[in-house]
């Protein structure tokens, strides 16, 4: 047990280091970007109105002061960490003075809800089908299926999304195509709301699953091709073990560990959202928030999204690493 704790401790250190370096890298990247948050805000405020040049100069000074962007980079970096350690990511600049974290937290449940669900479905479907296809290499049906899966995968996402939009939004308008929930329900733990959220998620989720599962399918099929030739699979076949059991418990199960790692990383990655889904289906989320933030030079917001994302990824990998011995009983903790 003690050895394991040491292992956990070491791994935890690595986790912190990853978060530290990842966040620092993002800090550097965003602060080196020449997009000026002051100009972006100024542009938004003065667009289409006739501000006099003097007024604009005055505003620019005021904003520069307010955002604290005239301080040296090192000072900003130091302040950033000081604040971050207090759980404060500072005010968003494109939405000054709203705390950046508030904006993130508002978008987070949607993105995470949609993406986690669809990623999980994608992963499960892709792996099961990939496992089957890798095992029954001569099955006509699975071959055809594989071709369909591989055929859908390279279709650009927004085309798939658009087709869904046309089919279920227009030709046969049975599903909502915009937003996270209907305007006529009250958010909260009531059935109407939950049902609305679910129906609104169907199309975005389906589109994500459709284009996403091919990747897992390919991966699993490849991993399985190493496993099917193992003696224990042959032996189980010879013993007439139920085919489903062989596929599930022998073949897929043995190929699963790498896919789980990849899943963890992907799940960690959902914290950066999907821009196109959010646009096509008007779905609230982190993707377009990130784009807005980058476009508006909003360091705080980029960093808030990045910090969440970096932490999530690092944590996901950390957890999978800890679970490794569970997933593969043969593994020795080093």
């Amino acid at each position, binding site marked *: 047990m003690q050895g394991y704790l040491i292992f956990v401790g070491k791994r935890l250190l690595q986790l912190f280091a990853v978060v530290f370096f990842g966040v620092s890298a993002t800090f550097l990247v965003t602060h080196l970007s020449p997009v000026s948050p002051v100009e972006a805000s100024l542009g938004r405020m003065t667009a289409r109105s006739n501000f006099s040049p003097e007024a604009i100069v005055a505003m620019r000074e005021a904003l520069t002061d307010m955002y604290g962007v005239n301080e040296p980079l090192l000072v900003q970096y130091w302040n950033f960490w000081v604040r971050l350690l207090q759980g404060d990511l500072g005010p968003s600049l494109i939405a000054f003075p709203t705390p950046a974290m508030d904006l993130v937290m508002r978008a987070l449940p949607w993105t995470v809800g949609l993406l986690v669900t669809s990623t999980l479905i994608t992963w499960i479907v892709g792996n099961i089908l990939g496992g089957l296809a890798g095992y029954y290499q001569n099955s006509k049906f699975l071959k055809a299926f594989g071709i369909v899966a591989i055929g859908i995968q390279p279709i650009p996402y927004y085309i798939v999304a658009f087709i869904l939009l046309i089919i279920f939004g227009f030709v046969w308008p049975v599903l909502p195509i915009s937003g996270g929930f209907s305007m006529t329900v009250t958010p909260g733990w009531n059935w109407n709301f939950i049902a609305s959220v679910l129906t609104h998620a169907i199309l975005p989720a389906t589109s994500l699953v459709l284009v996403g599962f091919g990747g897992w399918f390919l991966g699993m099929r490849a991993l399985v091709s190493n496993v099917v030739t193992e003696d224990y699979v042959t032996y189980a076949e010879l013993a007439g073990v139920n085919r489903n059991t062989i596929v599930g418990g022998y073949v897929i199960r043995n190929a699963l560990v790498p896919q789980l790692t990849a899943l963890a990383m992907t799940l960690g990655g959902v914290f950066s959202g999907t821009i196109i889904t959010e646009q096509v289906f008007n779905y609230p989320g982190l993707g377009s928030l990130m784009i807005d933030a980058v476009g508006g030079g909003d360091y705080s917001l980029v960093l808030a999204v990045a910090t969440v994302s970096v932490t999530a990824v690092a944590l996901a990998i950390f957890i999978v690493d*800890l679970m490794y*011995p569970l997933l593969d009983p043969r593994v020795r903790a080093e």
Partner: protein
Amino acid sequence: MTTLLDVRDVSKRFTMGGLFGRKQVDAVMDASFSLSAEKPEIFTIIGESGSGKTTLARMILGLEDPSRGEILFRGQKVDRHAGRAKRLEFMSNVQPVFQNPFEAFNPLKKIERYLESTARRFLHTSDKAAIDRAMDEALQKVGLSLREVRGRFPHEMSGGQLQRCAIARALIPNPPLLVADEPVSMVDASLRMSIVNLLKSLRDDLGVSVIYITHDLATAYYISNRLIIMQRGRIVEMGDARTVLDNPEHAYSRLLKASVLSTDDAGAGKLGTDPDMLRLANGSVGQAGRLIDRADGRSVRVYESV
């Protein structure tokens, strides 16, 4: 007298498991012996399944770091992390035959690659003909030929064929020390004899020392100079092969000898084991004891309580 190989108080402990249960396995405990450089010998290791024979062999080969103790080959520490040149130098002197022939070859690769690479590297030649000749010679020694082996994948060979290929490969560099882990477990009696005879002639004619790990007491008796008997990671008896096997002293050694099946009463179906012997042999498990030198040159592990 210089030593070829010096195994000094070597132990190996493995840690297994993860989140909840963690198990420590003492695969080898305090093993010591040495081989002399002047007097090549066949040194046999016999023992229970899982008694640490393979682990010991791996440590000698520098594939596993001992948890305690050290192993010296020609006075140099066997070190897994030594530089590549040093390791190569070591490998040209010490070659292994791995235990499970089905595992010892990459199923995706043709068998001849291993032979070819060995020949190229340790005979320091890149002349195709020379390499082929070396490979064929080695294969002929174990009853195969390059023609039969060339172009084949491991799954296209029988267990015995694979095992012979593995031996042939190890012979190519003409190493002064061969570590053979159950090299004949999968070949028929006749071939087994020819391979065992081969080991013998390697020793007698070429001065090759062999560490011979086996379950076959008969061949051990037949060719080896000295042997050790292992039980649960511990050496329980060590000494001249014939002395020990003719008259084993430790309870486990005796059980071992008694368990050897004989063809004398073929068809009689006698498979019983003396339960007393079994109990005695198991009684020593888990106890440290001490290795005591006997007058006839052997060492035996004795226990205070017994």
